[in-house]
């Protein structure tokens, strides 16, 4: 279907984009990669009056390490992140996530930030970046505010973003020494959303005990979920088969998957267990001496 008619604007700065959002009086929508929004408009599930195309705003292309964070600007695509040598070397969690988001053509246009604003609990970045303890940087008429991603992702398709605000950036803490990460996903075919998926970010002490760990669950509830119980029981422990098995079971208990064409609740819950275990093993293996 051709979408309902709308006006189109392509501002050159964030300030202009925010002014356009304000002026549209809640009828405006940001267009980033369009890989979620355009299909929704074509199905007439969304019918904004004004599309504010942010793809021509240079400041939103920021993609670099600075002051202890990797700054991922709103216009950084899944593909750009996937191809980044710096991400491949130092952010194995992000690298292994980018590879399994959608398909290679969708990855060329879809953005990490667009995916977070879309807030689909089956979206991969929510789970991966919760594990990474990322911060959302939101800009509105009053300026910038920063919050943990856990607070940004409020509910299914719902974020903490105000009507005249833009997610300008997501910041991922640069992992310290003895860190590793990994993302594990089961999908029916390339380009499908996850049946189940788990992201892990891990830091060990010199003695081999878990110093910090983040575990994010995808498609395991109304919103990307932090496996708090599993995280809590790993802190201070040596990461061995016994502690991994126990943490994986705790993550599965905390998951609240729903039954759909991708599987039954018991199956999905068990896959959370399996994938948590695999992601913890792989995150440990990704630690470089």
């Amino acid at each position, binding site marked *: 279907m*051709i*979408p309902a008619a709308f006006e189109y604007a392509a501002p050159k700065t964030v300030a202009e984009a925010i002014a356009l959002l304000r002026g549209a009086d809640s009828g405006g929508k940001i267009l980033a990669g369009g890989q979620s929004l355009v299909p929704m408009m074509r199905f007439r599930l969304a019918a904004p009056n004004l599309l504010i195309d942010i793809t021509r705003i240079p400041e939103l292309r920021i993609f670099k390490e600075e002051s202890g964070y990797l700054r991922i600007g709103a216009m950084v695509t899944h593909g750009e992140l996937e191809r980044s040598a710096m991400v491949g070397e130092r952010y194995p969690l992000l690298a292994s996530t980018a590879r399994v988001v*959608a398909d*290679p053509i969708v990855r060329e*246009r879809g953005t990490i930030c667009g995916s977070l604003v879309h807030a689909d609990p089956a979206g991969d970045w929510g789970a991966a970046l919760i594990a990474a303890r990322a911060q959302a940087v939101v800009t509105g008429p009053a300026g910038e505010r920063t919050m943990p991603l856990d607070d940004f992702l409020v509910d299914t398709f719902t974020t903490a973003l105000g009507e005249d605000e833009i997610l300008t950036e997501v910041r991922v803490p640069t992992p310290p020494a003895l860190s590793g990460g990994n993302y594990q996903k089961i999908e029916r075919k390339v380009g499908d959303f996850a049946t189940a998926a788990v992201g892990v970010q891990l830091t060990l002490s010199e003695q081999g005990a878990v110093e910090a760990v983040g575990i994010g669950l995808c498609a395991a509830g109304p919103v990307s979920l932090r496996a708090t119980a599993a995280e809590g029981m790993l802190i201070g422990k040596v990461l061995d088969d016994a502690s991994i098995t126990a943490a994986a079971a705790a993550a599965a208990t905390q998951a609240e998957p729903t039954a759909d064409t991708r599987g039954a609740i018991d199956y999905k819950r068990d896959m959370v267990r399996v994938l948590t275990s695999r992601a913890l093993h792989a995150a440990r293996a990704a630690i470089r001496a």
Partner: protein
Amino acid sequence: MSHHIEITVNGTHQALDVEPRLPLVFALREMLDLTGTHVGCDTTSCGACTVLVDGTPVKSCTMFAVQADGCSVETVEGLAAGGELHPLQKAFWENHGLQCGFCTPGMLMTAKALLARNPRPSEVEIRRGISGNLCRCTGYQNIVKAIQQAAAEQSTAAAAGD
């Protein structure tokens, strides 16, 4: 309200007046008569509509024509320069890389972008690279072979040209 856009399509400058809601694929097919780019699912899933926008593969059913203002667009019609088949087209022909041909224009454009970025891809890299383009006929084996052949020919040609 219609917007005036200027795009370069297969090397030719085009000025168009488009409604913002017009997907790029329909501007190509209906305004420019470039019907080589196909519409399959029309909902971002199949890759049949893949074209290159400034060299990047894009599902043209999921980008509005107005967004392409100032960009260079390449479609399957642009491949055979001077009437001579592009190495990829030739390789698809020789290896039975198509049956009904519906997916082929998108497959060719994706393959072209893949080889531009990675001139000697492994079989796994080819399979991953075309995994956003669905084919109902071939079972993909011959498409992979065709891309391998084109890659080999292009790098031989590049080496000879050095």
